[in-house]
């Protein structure tokens, strides 16, 4: 088992540790590097959206995967981030035209990119604390239902807060700030946070109450507190991802933050493996690449000997089939609870040591 929370018994020499940490970082940085030098505009788009998806899946995993309670409401935080940051960063002159009914204290505000996404993230974190206090006391399925109703509430608020959001009409005029480097910097931050939390005593407590709530309580784990930190953190990171998405897509409406998006993120999470950081990344990359490829294929193609006609909607059907296959053949997801162990790449001895654990 090279599961989370287990540390290799033998200390590897320093260069191996460095290499083991550097390899995934290098692999990940290939994406923004390629996007900057050599990718077409379309490939750039895919790489940027992929990065944002990785962030969304990872931060959902930080809560769902590691605490074992299922949140269906994270897209609500994403919406708060997207709208919040867009309103804060929109130039004052544009606000006067696009959002004429905005209250005076907001109409005069124009923050830079980083301050506005951080503020939007903090807003989501505060909301997470408020709803977390009652909701996280619940167990299992009740959390899923309660967070789902949070999502519904966010949608209703967005639709009715017309002076701020233009209601259900398209919100536009978001400054185009998001670049591939911003996105991947945040991806790294998200991975780092998830990694550190998991390997802290706090993370162990999270896993303990996931595996056996009663036993965890018996050894003095405060269940509410151990759930609260990942919940608030993942709300923050989800909102930041939402803000990055907003500053990239530029015009959106409350419809973008509802069931379709919720299930898209959950699919990536489940395919990759709940409870695994590398699983989240692998699952997201796979699903995004597969969707894009299938989307290309469903337009029909010519193989020289056969002409395949366009079959729009085929990509959705094939994705569903792939998803069901994963559920049947690898119920725990591609990586399950385990991580890709880069240490192994650099040491034969380590592998045997791992097996003996």
């Amino acid at each position, binding site marked *: 088992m090279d599961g989370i929370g287990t540390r290799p018994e033998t200390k590897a020499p320093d260069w191996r540790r460095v290499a083991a940490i550097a390899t995934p970082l290098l692999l990940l940085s290939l994406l923004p590097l390629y996007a900057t030098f050599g990718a*077409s*505009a*379309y490939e750039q*788009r*895919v790489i940027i*959206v992929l990065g944002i998806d990785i962030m969304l899946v990872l931060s959902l995993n930080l809560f769902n995967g590691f605490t074992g309670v299922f949140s269906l409401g994270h897209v609500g935080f994403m919406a708060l981030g997207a709208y919040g940051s867009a309103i804060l960063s929109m130039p004052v002159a544009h606000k006067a035209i696009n959002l004429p009914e905005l209250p005076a204290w907001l109409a005069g505000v124009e923050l830079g990119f980083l301050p506005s996404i951080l503020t939007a993230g903090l807003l989501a974190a505060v909301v997470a604390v408020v709803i977390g206090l009652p909701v996280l006391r619940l167990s299992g399925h009740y959390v899923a239902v309660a967070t789902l109703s949070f999502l519904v509430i966010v949608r209703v608020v967005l*639709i009715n807060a017309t002076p701020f959001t233009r*209601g*259900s*009409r*398209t919100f*536009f005029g978001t400054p185009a700030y998001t670049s591939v480097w911003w996105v991947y910097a945040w991806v790294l931050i998200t991975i780092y946070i998830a990694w550190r939390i998991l390997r802290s005593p706090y993370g162990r407590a999270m896993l303990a109450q996931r595996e056996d709530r009663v036993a965890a309580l018996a050894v003095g784990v405060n269940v509410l507190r151990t759930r609260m930190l990942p919940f608030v953190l993942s709300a923050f990171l989800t909102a930041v991802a939402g803000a990055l*998405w907003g500053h990239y*897509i*530029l*015009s*959106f*409406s409350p*419809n*973008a933050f509802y069931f*379709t998006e919720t299930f898209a993120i959950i699919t990536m999470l489940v395919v990759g493996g709940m409870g695994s950081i590398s699983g989240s990344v692998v699952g997201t990359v*796979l699903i995004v*690449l*597969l969707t*894009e*490829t*299938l*989307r*290309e*294929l*469903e*337009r*029909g*193609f*010519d*193989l020289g000997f056969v002409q395949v006609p*366009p079959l*729009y*909607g085929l990509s*959705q059907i094939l994705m569903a089939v792939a998803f069901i296959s994963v559920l049947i*053949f*690898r119920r725990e997801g*591609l990586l399950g609870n385990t991580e890709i162990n880069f240490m192994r790449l650099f040491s034969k001895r380590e592998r045997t040591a791992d097996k003996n654990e």
Partner: protein
Amino acid sequence: MKTKALMLGTVLALGALGTLASAQAAETIKIGGAFNLTGELSSLDVPAANGAKLALKEINAAGGVNGKKVELIMRDGKTDPATVANITTQLIESDKVLAIIGFTDSDSALAAGPLCQRAGIPFITAGATSPKLPAQVGNMMFLAPFGDNVQAAVGAEFAVKNFGKSAYLLWDKGTEYTTLLADYFKKRFAELGGTLVLEDTYQFGDKDFSAQIAKVKSLPKQPDFYYISAMPDDIGTTVKQFREAGITGPIVGGDGYDTPLLVQVAGAAADNTYFTTHALMDADNGSPAVKKFMAAYKAEFGHEVENAFAALGYDTMRLIVDAVRRAGSNDGKAIAKAIEATQGFPGVAGELNYSASAHVPRKGVTMIAVKGGKFTLGAEMVPEKVPAP
């Protein structure tokens, strides 16, 4: 391990196929077709896309344009803003299209428009009716249909002339289209000296209108007519419930009513309903252009025209090809100039006129009256005054 290898193999194979698929080249005039062929908007976008395909076939049968065949590169936006942005980029970058046509809603048009604007490629929306789009996006953005301000003005003028000066207004606050339509109606109606006896709202997807109906019933005196700004999915249910509650006065609305659902769901109750739309899609009573189009559509796709969006898609495709012909160049700016210079272009859904300052065509509006479960021509009108976008 075997499963993993299998999966990897599949992905690679699919990727190779994808590259094969995109490896096609020929000397053609390439036009991008960006439509939501799947998802919630497909009931409007598929007819529009079919209309465009039909126009393409006719254009190529007539020898293409400037001695070249025309190619319509169709991509599916899946009613998802991120995918809409992706396919627009692909059309511009990978397919190198001269111009893009498509979409029937302003959400998608707003996602695609700015990308076209940045690339300097003209974008004509086949069905989005928000007159604010050109101001929001820029000088590469054009509308094929009239703006909501125009149809709302016609609705108000027609109703005041024929029914009277007191009205009830109900609108769906869930979509851009129904919100704008209700807004413009209110403006024009007030100018005409009308009074709203009651204004009420509902949310897209509501199926029960008993609360709204109870308020109408409790009015001391019923208004001369009822203006309901609704989406195609809701309108049948709304009209049916109003009629069942004993409200018999004329119901007036916009092009969202232009769906077979109105008569299918409401049945005989749909009588005495009036709505503004792009053209009367009726094989018996329509204009000669409509009859010809309907026959060709049926021959091509094997079923009747679903709604006026098919005609709009057809017009849009013909308009862009005509503009490319007149521009005589592949330059986006020149094509946009040619669209702006369009005067008296005969479309199935009305004559098209543009200018540098008007990227929303000045078009006549068709008023349809539902009688005996059938759409009949109520009036062909140009509004006397149009509210500012």
